[in-house]
């Protein structure tokens, strides 16, 4: 407990590095201030808006997909090829262009410097480039909707040979633009990612040890490291597939007889791509999950007015999950025809990962124990996250247990699993985080009433979409089917259930529009937040101004004396003690912020 116990502060060592960024670069013109801006906070907002914008497209695609599934043959404009293009784009947009970009580019950029007491990222210029390359990747992605043949319909997993053969929609231009867009995304992300990692490792303020960082930062940091090491596999896969498609090399292509015609490929290995893809893909799902883990810990702690339970275990769990997730990838390939021997290895590693994850879940709930829980919006989203994540994680255990995956793989059970654990749980955290940090970014609160509506509809709605979907998976209903048609084994009632899920999807979708409205109007009309409205301890709320200005803090950087979870300290004057409150003031200080960081004073 020595590390976390804050009343007894160890010495803050003398500065090794004097405020290394005090001579900040200052923008000279409107263009460099708002458009090509190098301030991480502006870049963060650019990232977030772009990601939410493209996410909205992903959402609309999901409605169209659901319409087809719920009411087959009603919407004649949806052809099979379109359907496959929609699911592909939906999956890819949601996982990569929305969640990865939002958590790392958006939240990462905003929160890392602020929470660590840095003035900016270490390489602001590269950081800015990162956003513009990301934007370019998004534009290329959108462009693929307009090329002849449309976007690719190979599924977001892009498995060759089909991805580049003519039997799959979008195999002319669509797949190439997809691969180009992914490569651009990776290049752009790498520029940003190096910034996040180096900032965390090398640019913390005095007293901010790694073991005092808020879990948000731990989550984002580990996810970024993950991304830097996992994206290379996708990058290499994308390059090789581009070559296979354009130059007819045979990396992934064996001899193929397509529609009676023998193609010129020979000797390649389709499974190689799957390994590369999942060597990236599995870490990728944790890239999406780990920031959510971190952020939700902070949301729960702040709004339960209690420290996170078992902070050190939480940190180690993140790190262990991170490390293990590089050796579980082939659990997506149990029935891919790979070497059967792998099943034993990967099932074991996969289920081992459940142990640190389970500990995180326990610690979240134990954070609530003997707390003083305020049911604010971020808290509600946090609670809902735990439920949906446990539900989705547990179904992961079914799939991870190799023999069980045999009947369940590629059924709707898998779709239900990953929507529960990825499409809902982290999305709920995103919403909670937006309700939590919006006041910091804009100085105003989001509307509470609209927020409650948004919460209940989204949480309950999406839960009842995906819970029953598991059972369709048990029946044996396949995923990625344009329509089921006649079968001997699927009961009539399954179609009614599908229609029900579609209707709920549309209702949930409507709630998102309400959220969007709230997001836009509250910028002008929201209640003034004032400094540190949630009475939080972490540094981002201790800035001189709300919203923080360029350079984040006042003349001097804050000095950190304790961990970020000093809530309910017995001998403190109030129920929270900011990280930078000098020890001698703990017993007396009352107020939302620590006095002398108030900038100009």
């Amino acid at each position, binding site marked *: 407990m020595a590390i976390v116990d804050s009343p007894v502060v160890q010495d803050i060592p003398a500065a090794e590095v004097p405020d290394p960024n005090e001579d900040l670069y200052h923008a000279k013109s409107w263009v460099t201030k708002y458009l090509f801006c190098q301030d991480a906070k502006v870049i963060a907002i650019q990232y977030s808006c772009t990601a939410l914008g493209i996410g909205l497209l992903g959402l609309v695609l999901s409605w169209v997909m659901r319409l087809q599934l719920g009411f087959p043959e009603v919407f004649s404009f949806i052809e099979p090829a379109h359907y496959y293009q929609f699911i592909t784009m939906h999956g890819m947009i949601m996982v990569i262009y929305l969640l990865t970009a939002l958590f790392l580019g958006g939240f990462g950029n905003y929160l890392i410097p602020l929470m660590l007491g840095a003035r900016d990222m270490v390489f602001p210029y590269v950081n800015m480039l990162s956003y513009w390359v990301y934007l370019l990747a998004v534009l290329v992605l959108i462009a693929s909707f307009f090329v002849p043949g449309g976007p690719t319909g190979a599924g977001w997993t892009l498995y060759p040979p089909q991805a580049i*053969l003519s039997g799959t929609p979008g195999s002319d231009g669509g797949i190439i633009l997809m691969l180009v867009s992914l490569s651009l995304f990776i290049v752009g992300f790498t520029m940003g990612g190096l910034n996040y990692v180096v900032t965390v490792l090398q640019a913390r303020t005095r007293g901010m040890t790694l073991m005092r960082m808020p879990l948000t930062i731990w989550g984002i940091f580990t996810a970024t490291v993950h991304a830097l090491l996992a994206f290379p596999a996708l990058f290499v896969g994308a390059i090789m597939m581009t070559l296979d498609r354009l130059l007819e090399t045979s990396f992934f292509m064996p001899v193929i007889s397509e529609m009676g015609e023998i193609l010129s490929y020979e000797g390649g290995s389709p*499974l190689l791509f799957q390994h590369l893809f999942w060597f990236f893909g599995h870490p990728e799902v944790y890239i999406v999950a780990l920031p959510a883990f971190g952020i939700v810990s902070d949301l729960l702690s702040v709004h339960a007015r209690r*420290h996170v339970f078992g902070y050190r275990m939480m940190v180690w769990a993140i790190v262990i999950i991170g490390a293990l997730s590089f050796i579980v990838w082939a659990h997506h390939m149990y029935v891919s025809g790979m070497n059967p021997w792998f099943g034993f290895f990967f099932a074991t590693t996969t*289920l081992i990962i459940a142990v640190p994850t389970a500990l995180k879940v326990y610690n979240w709930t134990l954070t609530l124990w003997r*707390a*003083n829980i305020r049911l604010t919006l971020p808290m509600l989203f946090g609670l809902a996250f735990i439920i949906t994540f446990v539900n989705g994680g547990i179904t992961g255990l079914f799939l991870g247990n190799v023999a069980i995956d045999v009947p369940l793989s590629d059924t709707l059970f898998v779709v239900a699993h990953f929507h529960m654990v990825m499409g809902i749980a982290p999305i709920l955290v995103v919403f909670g985080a937006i309700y939590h940090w919006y006041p910091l970014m804009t100085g105003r609160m989001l509307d509470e009433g609209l927020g409650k509506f948004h919460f209940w509809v989204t949480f309950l709605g999406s839960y009842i979409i995906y819970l029953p979907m598991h059972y369709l998976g048990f029946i*044996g209903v*396949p995923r990625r089917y*344009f329509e089921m048609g006649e079968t001997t084994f699927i009961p009539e*009632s399954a179609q009614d259930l599908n229609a029900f899920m579609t209707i709920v999807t549309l209702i949930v979708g409507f709630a998102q529009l309400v959220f969007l409205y709230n997001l836009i109007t509250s910028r002008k009309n929201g209640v003034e937040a004032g400094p540190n409205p949630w009475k939080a301890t972490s540094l981002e709320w201790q800035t001189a101004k709300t919203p923080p200005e360029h350079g984040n803090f006042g003349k001097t950087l804050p000095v950190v004396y304790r961990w970020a979870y000093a809530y309910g300290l017995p001998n403190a004057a109030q129920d929270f003690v900011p990280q930078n409150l000098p020890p001698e003031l703990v017993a007396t200080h009352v107020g939302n912020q620590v006095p002398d960081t108030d900038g100009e004073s």
Partner: protein
Amino acid sequence: MIVAYAILLVGIGTVVFHFVSPWWWTPIASNWGFIDDVIIITFWVTGVVFVAVVLFMAYCVYRFRYKEGQRAEYNPESKKLEIWLSVLTSVGVAIMLAPGLWAWDEFVTVPEGTAEFEVLGQQWSWMYRFPGKDGKLGKSSTKLIDDDNPFGLDPKDPNGQDDVLIEDSELHLPLNKPVKVLLRSVDVLHDFYVPELRAKMDMVPGAVTYLWFEPIRVGTFDILCFELCGTGHYDMRGSLVIEEADAFNEWFEAQSTFAETLARISPEGEIEHKIAANAAENSF
């Protein structure tokens, strides 16, 4: 208050739904019942934890809701509790994993002497090939595929001459006879799955994959392609008829062999009709 009830409701609702929902396994028709059992085990282990976590949360939200002036307990960690929880979880994992691995071992280990046949996938239809009297399938090559030789069999391989070719999506298998299914694709990835059999495996062009099972129930079942293979993926269906050995043999005899199809193409051509003197006992 409402929130606590809502959480409670979600937890209880989930359990109730599990027991009353009309949607559940399609009745099994193969020897893989053990996989279903492992699922039931997993349901119990994870279900208990799910309910425990949700109930605990509901209780906390109800009991420790905000009161002005109240302070939360300050007690950052408890080694003892965390060790206990890790151990219990690990035990839970072991209870699920052990039977799972055992079942997988069964699944990938084909018993000696199991009869083989081949399923051939292509966009977007199924074909099947049985070994003839010799019990051996001839070698193939995708390069040899043409209209006259849709399976791409090697005409020079004596084992292939008596192979029985079924250019139709309907497959028949005899009851209670274990079979090893060799899966081959000529173009893209496909996946052979019959929900009642519980066994599926991808078909990979440029390789041959396999699975095995023993049919234990007579009936006609759907064969579906379970790996996205292009626009026609959803329409790539077949049917599997499991029947008594007599009925099967009758069907089987009516099919033609590779040699016969070759002969049909070039009647005057010399075709060596090699039939292994002693038919292997693992033939159909």
